[in-house]
């Protein structure tokens, strides 16, 4: 018994360690996240107190059993009155608690709605099966940045996210920064994101959207304004001319093979937008919407057979020889 209890406690403690880190609503890093965490904790605390009270009363009732009446239909007017009063009071108390929680939730909502009304940066996030297209709006068309599956934001500043969907309903959820908000086809939702500290926060599609819903992750990277500006300028650049012979060969293959039908590499004739933009793909941390970390091996595995890694993904398995694959990977690696 004692062993069992110890095992139970240890595993509970193990679960609790999952509450901190890059993807946790209980480890907030922005004003909206903090407001929501406060709400979660106050709800939990209040409900715990009520649960303990109910359990206490139940225990008292079990311990102090009333004597069995001789006639089960016999009624005692006095105790009936007391019981009615107790039930009435409990109902009133329940109502009051519910009203309190509603008011709490209302105030939290009001705070959330008020955050970042003065956001300067607008980012359009479009959900696809199963990846995120990211587009930084700018009044100057030549300064619009498009990328995928990774959102860089300046820390300490509110950023407006415009959420859209191209196929089915998705949901954008970065637990450490904000609550969920759905991406609905034909509807535009907006959300204000603000990270108070630098860091990498993981997000996840939170509305079942098909076979690879679980592999639809997104990274939000909050960095100081200076670093963010440098990143932005780098993203505006065309893809660099490959320096090695192998990479040049890879570029020619890229432009003559199926890659060119879906992907965009700025500075080449590849200009499709059916798949994620690849102009600076090698500078991202992950591959295939958070499925794999970015490395040469993973890139090769992904291009060689995406259907084994993410079955059902829209990227088809292509017919490439080993040499062709090697060259294409060498080229994609230069897309920093």
């Amino acid at each position, binding site marked *: 018994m004692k062993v069992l209890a110890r095992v139970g406690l240890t595993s509970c403690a193990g679960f609790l360690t999952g509450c901190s880190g890059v993807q946790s609503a209980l480890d907030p890093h922005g004003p909206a996240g903090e407001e929501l965490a406060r709400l979660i904790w106050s709800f939990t605390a209040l409900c715990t107190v009520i649960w303990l009270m109910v359990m206490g009363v139940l225990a008292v009732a079990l311990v102090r059993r009333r004597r069995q009446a001789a006639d089960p239909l016999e009624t005692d007017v006095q105790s009936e009155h007391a019981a009615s009063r107790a039930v009435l009071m409990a109902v009133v108390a329940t109502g009051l608690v519910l009203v309190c929680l509603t008011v709490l939730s209302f105030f939290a909502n009001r705070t959330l709605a008020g955050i970042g009304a003065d956001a300067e940066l607008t980012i359009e996030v479009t959900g696809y099966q199963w990846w995120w297209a990211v587009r930084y709006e700018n009044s100057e068309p030549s300064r619009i940045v498009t990328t995928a599956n990774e959102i860089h934001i300046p820390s300490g500043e509110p950023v407006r996210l415009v959420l859209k969907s191209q196929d089915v309903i998705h949901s954008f959820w970065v637990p450490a920064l904000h609550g969920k908000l759905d991406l609905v086809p034909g509807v535009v939702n907006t959300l204000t994101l603000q990270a108070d500290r630098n860091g990498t926060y993981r997000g996840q599609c939170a509305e079942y959207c098909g076979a690879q819903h679980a592999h639809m992750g997104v990274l939000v990277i909050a960095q100081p304004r200076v670093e963010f500006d440098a990143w932005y300028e780098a993203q505006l650049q065309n893809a660099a001319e490959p320096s090695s012979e192998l990479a040049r060969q890879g570029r020619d293959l890229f432009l003559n093979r199926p890659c060119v039908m879906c992907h965009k590499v700025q500075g080449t004739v590849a200009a499709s937008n059916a798949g994620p933009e690849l102009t600076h793909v090698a500078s991202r941390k992950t591959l295939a919407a958070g499925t794999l970390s970015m490395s040469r091996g993973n890139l090769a595995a992904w291009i060689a057979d995406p259907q084994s890694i993410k079955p059902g993904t829209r990227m088809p*398995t*292509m*017919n490439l020889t080993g040499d062709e694959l090697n060259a294409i990977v060498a080229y994609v690696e230069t897309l920093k």
Partner: protein
Amino acid sequence: MKMRTLALLAGVAILLTGCQREERDTRPDPVKGAGDQAVPVTSLAPGGERPVDTDAKAARFADNAFHMSEGKRLFDWFNCSGCHSRGGGGMGPALMDDKWIYGSSIENIHATIRDGRPNGMPAFGGRVPDDQIWELAAYVRSLAGKSSKAAAPGRNDDLMPHPSENRLPDATTLGRSP
């Protein structure tokens, strides 16, 4: 009582078999590209009746609901509408009518997309994986009502100028272009 339960269970089991329409073939195995394929544009041949060359893939892709809906998505992605205008025709010929310059069989359409045709149709062979060309070919047939109504796409993802493909009339009998 026992008989009734058994009969009910059997009924449910039979109903369950209806849940499976077809396998989704997302990963061709073994992974192979386009082979050499001899597709005649016409079934006319000298010397009387002869078996017509067909491709083994044709049967796998024709009238397959998954492949046709993928074909519909690819039709949009690869901008077939740029010339064929949602099947109604523009710079390129209409795909909803009963005029097939280079043949209406799935093999003919596959060859048209893969190798291109004179006066404008580009050759997509090599640029589009072979299986996707078959998917497109299967979908193009449904635009003219030439595929099974039970398998043709039944839903449009966005605004479309014509009903979904499973409700399009068969172009051989109806909807002849002037």
